[in-house]
């Protein structure tokens, strides 16, 4: 019975084609989302469709498949079960998604597209031996490492900081999003970059104006943050006073953030390198 359910690679590619091809709008009819089942069990997360490619959430997939999946943002590779694959990833609602195709190819798991109650869903079948064969990247000395911990170890965003005589600025996290507040989308060809920032007055004077932040990309283009979407609100900082929040920038898809610059009145700009 199980054998029968297994798909040949040919049919697998046919299904990937289905997911990525002409039928995708119809398949992803319900809010562009598609439920995922692994070995008959729902993983509780859905696949999303963007530009005709089906993406699956990285961390829930890693948990469901009991394998390590790592995303390296600098080399743009997905490390699955010890091997790395060049790919693109996307952030949606704060979740990192990777292409279904990359996951399915790497674990050699057949992907089925099924219909239940008029709704499509994806099913992956993982043979036990395959999961065991897959070498785990996570060290055995750490008994219960979660994939999110593994992500951090793999060099996910490490806090960056810079200071002058007046302010100390720390970027605690940086993420790329295609949706802010589950509502706002960037303009076509753009993406949102969210920087979680803290700013402290390290001078011994009260600071009335704590400055305006701009972002510089690797090509030297400068951007102002979208104040209506950001949650960094200016406030007077007394000596030692700290303020934090998130800054949302909209930059072209092709660009990557290089520097966060604080422009204060009467002082030199303060630059935090993001690389």
């Amino acid at each position: 019975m199980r054998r029968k359910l297994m798909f040949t690679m040919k049919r697998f590619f046919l299904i990937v084609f289905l997911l990525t091809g002409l039928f995708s709008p119809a398949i992803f009819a319900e809010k562009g989302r598609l439920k995922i089942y692994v070995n008959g069990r729902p993983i509780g997360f859905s696949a999303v469709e963007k530009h005709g490619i089906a993406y699956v959430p990285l961390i829930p997939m890693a948990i469901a498949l009991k394998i390590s999946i790592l995303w390296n943002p600098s080399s743009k590779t997905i490390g699955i079960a010890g091997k790395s694959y060049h790919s693109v990833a996307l952030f949606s609602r704060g979740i990192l998604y990777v292409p279904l195709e990359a996951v399915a190819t790497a674990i050699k798991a057949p992907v089925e597209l099924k219909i239940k109650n008029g709704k499509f869903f994806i099913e992956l079948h993982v043979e036990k031996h395959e999961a065991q064969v897959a070498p785990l990247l996570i060290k055995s000395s750490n008994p219960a490492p979660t994939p999110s911990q593994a992500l951090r170890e793999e060099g996910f965003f490490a806090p960056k900081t810079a200071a002058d005589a007046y302010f100390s600025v720390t970027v605690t996290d940086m993420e790329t999003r295609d949706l802010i507040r589950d509502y706002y989308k960037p303009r076509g060809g753009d993406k949102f970059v969210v920087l979680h920032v803290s700013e402290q007055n390290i001078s011994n004077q009260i600071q009335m104006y704590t400055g305006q932040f701009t972002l510089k990309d690797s090509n030297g283009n400068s951007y102002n943050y979208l104040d209506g979407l950001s949650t960094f609100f200016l406030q007077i900082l007394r000596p030692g006073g700290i303020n934090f929040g998130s800054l949302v920038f909209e930059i072209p898809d092709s660009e990557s953030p290089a520097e966060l610059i604080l422009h204060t009145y009467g002082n030199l700009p303060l630059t935090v390198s993001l690389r």
Partner: protein
Amino acid sequence: MKKFFQIIAIFSFILVFLTSCSKTPRKKIVITFWNAMNGSRGKALQILVNQFNASHPRIFVKSVFKGSKAYYSNNYTILIRDLLLSLKKNDPPTMAQVYENWTAQFIGAHAIIPLEKFIHKKNGYTPKDLQDFVPAFLKSNEPNGVLWTLPFNKSLYVLYYNKSLFKKEGLKPPATWDNFLTVAEELTFTGRNRKVIRYGLTDPPDENLFDIIFYALGGIYFKHGRADFNGEKGDYALRLIRQMKNEKIFFPDYHALQAFTEGKAAMYIDTTAALPYLEASAKFPIGISRVPGELKSISLFAGTNLAIFKKSAPAQKKAAWIFIKWLLKPDRTAWWAAHTGYLPVRISAIHSPVFVSYLKKHPEFKIPLQQLGRAFTDPRVWAWESIRGIVGHEVEAAIFGRAKIKQALNKAAEKTNLLLAQSPQQR
């Protein structure tokens, strides 16, 4: 060539002489009033400013709109940014609209003067005048017992509802959140394929909705200088919002105002300032009810106050006081309220002819007026704006299921405590 320069010099001398002659013997006092009022509110404010300037030949009020039409922008964010920058440059306006938490910062930075300086002097207010101010509004302007600012554009959170729909279904606006769930459920209309055609409630899924329900349960934001919204009541409030969202009776939408007028939901919570827009855009009659309250009937108010900056010249400060006093006269605050949806800040204004005729046209507006006795506002702490941002961020994550309720609230509380620790406490 030499002659040419001589001619130029003579001409410029004559020019300077003529301009100095044309000046009136007594110089006009120019005061700048920075505000975030645009659209119909901006127009209404400009009408008042023009009236003042016409009736006060020695003072000229220059109303400066601080805001932006930029993609995703907020007027008040621009106003505070420019105010802080102007303070850094040592060149603030004479007066501005300020929120309570801005006042806390400006007091700490010695940037504003208490209006009490003028109130208790000649040409100030009599005790009777002060008693005529809506007590809750006046109280929010009195950090540590000193009247620093005076209330200007104040609005109250109310529950807007589709009146014809309620009539058709034979329903009454809910008085408690418990009842709210039942009513919202009854009003939710699901079509084929379980697609919701009309929701019970729409609102932005942010800290405002959380705060309103939290306050309605009798919650207090801070206790002994620490966050206290992550206890049982906060948990209940956030759980309620998420439950409503999951049961598809609540439509979380950042453009909820529009969604409500389009009939996508039967109820909507916003301040009274939204009424002119709602009346102009909705195709159904708008009903107004008080926001449901569980343990106590609460009425959260919002809006700004008027402050005078310390840097201004004494004559400017005095002129600004004359303008503020003129602006807050019962008749004028009544006119302002009738044209903007804000509330009159003076009790006697409610009985003024202009407002009586407004109430005849908008009988629903009597409901928020009845709530004024129970009105209260958000905490006035220094870092309130940042705290709001933090709470909003976490609340939203919990509503959309990206974070667990308890964890989201604890995370927000932890960051809030960091911010509270460095803010001077104010009562």
